[in-house]
């Protein structure tokens, strides 16, 4: 059993039926008698496996099917086709033994009772998830300390800031020490320092419990800091599976070699560098060259020879830029597809 992956999907599908009509009075009246339904595939034939203890991030544009996939894995939605196994269970059966070993935290939905202190909801979850009292006390103390919550848990939830509320939501979700933790946009709308605190906490939880982590986030830093493996999902399909480094190199195969310079090179030197790669920046203060990975050593040697060169760096393209490029590319592919559709 230990070898079985924590999560495995085989051809998982989820379709939603949505009604649609044109705006305006006549279409509205027409819709009285005949409503038009469209089947939308939110998840289409998704297959992958996640091993125990892995930290995986889902990336994709809005509406790509990331959250739907999470909800399918947590057993909230009933799949339209295919098969999912999580910890050896079919999530859609929603068996108590299964639910006691997972947790789903959603940044945009709260479970804490609005008018009561968080402690009251914690107490409810202790009962519901059957956590022995001493274990509960210990975990609560540990987490409130890690998250620096102190007296916050004794205040009515409606009086808390967004960040404090999210911290309490995390505590409520983790009191039963789930082995698989699903996080849907856990840091949405928060300032940078709060994002950092929550990220740190999740990483610490993973370290202490060896839990399997599946995360979606709009903030690339979240994903980069927490996840060793990335799954890119678009239009309900898997279109990349690998590490962040691989993703970057796939989208931007060139690497950037940069130095700090004090004066601009003359034309002849620039032309010589252009033989090696693309000139991205022509300083001062910086000179950067995007080159094929194999030519990096050669380029490094050449750039160091530039008079007054300092601070040499070899870097991958920034993640945000990579994502923007990835989604822009996919969007243009999509538009192309609709064009042909219209023509037919």
């Amino acid at each position, binding site marked *: 059993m230990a070898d079985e992956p924590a999560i495995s999907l085989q051809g998982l599908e989820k379709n939603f039926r949505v009604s649609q009509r044109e705006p305006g009075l006549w279409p509205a009246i027409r819709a009285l008698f005949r409503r038009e339904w469209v089947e939308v595939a939110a998840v289409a034939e998704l297959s992958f496996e996640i091993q125990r203890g892995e930290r995986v991030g889902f990336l994709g544009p809005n509406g790509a099917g990331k959250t739907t996939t999470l909800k399918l894995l947590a057993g909230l939605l009933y799949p339209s086709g295919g098969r999912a196994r999580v910890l050896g269970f079919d999530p859609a059966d929603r068996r108590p033994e299964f639910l006691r070993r997972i947790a*789903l935290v959603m940044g945009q939905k709260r479970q804490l009772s609005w008018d009561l202190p968080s402690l009251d909801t914690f107490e409810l979850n202790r009962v519901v998830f059957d956590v022995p009292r001493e274990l509960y006390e210990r975990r609560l103390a540990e987490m409130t300390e890690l998250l620096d919550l102190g007296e916050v848990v004794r205040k009515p939830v409606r009086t808390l800031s967004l960040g404090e509320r999210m911290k309490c939501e995390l505590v409520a979700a983790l009191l039963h020490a789930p082995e698989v933790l699903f996080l849907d946009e856990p840091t949405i709308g928060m300032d940078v320092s709060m994002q950092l605190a929550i990220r740190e906490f999740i990483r610490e939880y993973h370290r202490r419990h060896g839990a399997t982590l599946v995360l979606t986030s709009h903030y690339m830093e979240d994903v980069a800091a927490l996840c060793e493996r990335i799954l890119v999902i678009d239009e309900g399909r898997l279109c990349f599976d690998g590490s962040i480094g691989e993703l970057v190199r796939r989208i931007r195969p060139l690497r950037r070699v940069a130095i700090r310079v004090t004066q601009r090179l003359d034309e002849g030197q620039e032309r010589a560098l252009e033989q090696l790669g693309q000139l991205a920046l022509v300083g001062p203060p910086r000179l950067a060259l995007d080159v094929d990975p194999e030519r990096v050593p050669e380029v490094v040697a050449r750039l160091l020879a530039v008079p007054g060169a300092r601070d040499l760096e070899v870097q991958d393209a920034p993640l945000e830029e990579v994502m923007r490029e990835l989604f822009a590319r996919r969007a243009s592919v999509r538009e192309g597809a609709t064009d042909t559709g219209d023509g037919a």
Partner: protein
Amino acid sequence: MSAGFEHGAARRHLRLLGAQLRLSTLAALEYRVGFWTEGVVGLAWSLGGVVPLVVAFEHRSDVAGWGPWELVLLTGFFLIISGVYAAVVQPAVSRSMTQIRTGTLDYLLLRPVDPLASCLTAQFEPWSLIETLTGIVVVIVATAKLGLSPSVGQLGALAVVLVCGLLSLVALGVLMLSASFKAMELQNLTSLMETLLGFAHWPVSVFRGPLKLVFTFVVPFAVMTSYPAQSLIGGLGWAELLGAVGTTLALTVGARVIWGRALRGYTSASS
């Protein structure tokens, strides 16, 4: 959807009930104005519903064979049922409907307990029990006034029909909740139910034809108020008793099945 029965499940569900009651009571105490808006107003509402009965007795010596104090007895049972509806069924159903609309039902479904048990305990309005307590007092007073001394058999029958009445009330709540999965707009079914409940003020023998069938078998107000009163007065036959049990069973099983199907179609609104 299988509830997954296992060792200790019953105990855990009872503890869930206890914890939820505690939480709702705490929340109710936060808003003390609820004593007035829910408790007293609810009681006034129900007593106001008695006015047509008073009008009827102005012009008649009996209503469909029921004397004044017999109708007071029936009104007592109405108050009990209406109080339970306002304290338990309506708040839980409304709260769950809100959770379906906002998508926070997700968290409820993630608990390792029966989702229906979670929904039915989602909220509780203790102040409305004032109405139920008043109803119990009214029943006792009317029983004394009528000089009734019910036999053990009659008390047994009373217990059976009362349980049936409460179960069908809950089953109707579950059906409304299931309907709201299909279409959000069906959320105002609870107000339809409240309106209908007003007719439980009347003995079922007043109604004729299809309406009588509806109030006996579909929305069984007969089981909720007429039968309990009849069981004390001594007019409840075996046929009615069996009919009550049968109707309740059908409603309860039907509600459970429809609930299971509704849950499969849950789409988890993303906000």
